[in-house]
């Protein structure tokens, strides 16, 4: 294999990893945009999604579509439930209390999963037969192709949803100024719940794609994945949808690049270093909007 095709192969790997990060980062970003909350429970929603896929794939192995649908539906339901039970009562309180509640929810989900299903990782059967496609001397696994395709479709759908529909307009309005939006007749509670539903549904898709790529589910799988996705969201500019996508790809590329030059133990440090440099140069992230402070 020539150097060029090796490089292209690594780039495709990076795109696959980056698109999973981007998908999860979107969930963080949308929730942050609308209620200014770093939703620590988001990474555990992914974990729950992975377990749902595991359950359906081991019990109904011939119906992968069912597993995918169940994972997405389950995550959506869970996200909205968390929002209703744990975050809505705290709408008016200091933001840090909300943050601690999110941490509490995250611990709760992690420990419940651990108690119920054990600490060991479960192996998820493959959703489809993984083959290698050859194209002009390049070999690419179907998993990469499917992942990249699914993420592209979801991103396009999301962008259309946010830009073109009435609900999308409501979401943008609430994130800009929730009080004014309420005065204009937007139903704030419904909009926030809808945002959580969309973010969690994306987490569901992300969890299925993660299972496709790594074939396992464990109670703590969310924490590092979530932290990286969160970094991606901040890197791109939290609250911004294209920012999350850019951030995800930057993180994916960095990780694959650092690993491929043989420094895989340092990859997390490099990711955080990039984050720090970006924040110091442009404190709102790559595509974040600068908000002026009023005195």
């Amino acid at each position, binding site marked *: 294999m020539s150097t060029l095709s090796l490089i292209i192969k690594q780039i495709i790997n990076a795109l696959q990893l980056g698109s999973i990060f981007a998908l999860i980062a979107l969930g963080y970003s949308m929730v*942050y945009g609308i209620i*200014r909350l*770093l939703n620590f429970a988001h990474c555990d929603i992914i974990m729950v999604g992975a377990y749902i896929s595991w359950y359906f794939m081991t019990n109904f192995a011939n119906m992968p579509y069912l597993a995918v649908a169940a994972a997405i539906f389950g995550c959506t339901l869970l996200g909205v439930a968390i929002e209703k039970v*744990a975050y809505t*009562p*705290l709408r008016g*309180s*200091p933001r*840090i*209390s*909300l*943050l*601690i*509640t999110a*941490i*509490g*929810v*995250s*611990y*709760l989900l992690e*420990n*419940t999963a*651990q*108690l119920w299903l054990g600490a060991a990782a479960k192996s998820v059967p493959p959703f489809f037969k993984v083959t290698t496609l050859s194209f002009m001397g390049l070999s690419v696994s179907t998993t990469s192709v499917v992942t990249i395709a699914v993420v592209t479709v979801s991103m396009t759908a999301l962008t259309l949803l946010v830009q073109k529909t009435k609900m999308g307009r409501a979401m943008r309005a609430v994130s800009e100024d929730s009080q004014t939006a309420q005065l204009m007749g937007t139903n704030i509670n419904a909009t926030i719940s809808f945002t959580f539903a969309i973010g969690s549904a994306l987490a569901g898709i992300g969890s299925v794609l993660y299972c496709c790529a790594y074939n396992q589910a464990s109670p703590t799988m969310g*924490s590092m994945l979530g*932290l990286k996705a*969160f*970094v991606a969201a*901040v890197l791109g500019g*939290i609250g911004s949808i294209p920012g999350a996508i850019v951030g995800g790809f930057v993180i994916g590329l960095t990780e694959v690049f650092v690993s491929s030059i043989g420094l895989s*133990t*340092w990859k*997390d*440090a490099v990711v*955080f*270093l990039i*984050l*720090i440099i970006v*924040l*110091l140069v442009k*404190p*709102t992230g790559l595509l974040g909007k600068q908000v002026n*402070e009023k*005195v």
Partner: protein
Amino acid sequence: MKTRKNLPLIVKYLIVAAVYALFLLAGNLLIKNKVIGLYYTKVLMVVAINMILAVSLNIGTGYLGQLPLGSAGFMAVGAYASAIFMRKVPIDPKLIFPVGIILGGLVSGLFGLIIGLPALRLKGDYLAIITLGFAEIIRIVILNIDKALGITLTYGAANLKNIPKTTTFTNAFIWVFIACFLIKAMMNSRHGRAILSIRDNEIAAESCGINLTFYKTMAFVVYAFFTGVGGALYAGYLGILNPSGFGFAKSIDILVIVVLGGMGSMTGSVISSAVLTIVPELLRAFSDYRMIVYSLLLIIVMIFRPTGLMGTKEFNPRGIMDFFMGRKKRKEER
């Protein structure tokens, strides 16, 4: 009441110190006579370490009004600095331990300065994320530096072993006292009021001539120093260190203590570090469920009491004496 008010400061301090010394003596006596067993002595040491960590994080969150999530990183720096020093120095570890602790604190404070200067340009959530990033970098550097430079300093993932176990009930609680005393003294001074004014309104504080960068960095360095002290005590308590113990979750644990106690309340931090360390130990009988109970507790307290258990209140509601007298009196009963 009146006479008390007129007591000179030094007498007040002496009374406080005497009362605290009594508490230490009583604790020691109970431990010597095995009324408090070895296990509970260890729990008490962890309580003390958590108190130091929480009280120092409280400077950053409660007093400065920022959200630093780097406690684990500073703790790791303090722990490793003091542990490496203690292993290398051939003097009786019991004698040299205070030097080790202060060294841990100083190295950590230095890191606080290096990290704080750039990081404090950011605010709120961004500050939280950048300190989190620095803490993770510190952990990964400790994990990999030996292999990268070909030295044996931290032993990376292979554990730093044979650290003299010099942390005791007495010296841990003496450091709790030192930390609380110095932080309280700082907060009652001019500098402390400057820090509080930054929390209340940054722009107004700046327009009154308060040097934001200086005071923010100062608060951050003090936070890093005492977190490093806590880390050094932690190293002397465990006797073995591994970078994986200083992950993101550790910072979160300490933040939870501070927020649950009430940000800006030192009493709150002290009480909640005792409660949140002891409750999981008591729940050990139901070990499977204890983390679930813990997380539910967290959610419920936040929903019903979003400002934390103590709010910003200190123990002494009448404001007759400064908080320090109050806290000691609680132990002696009022």
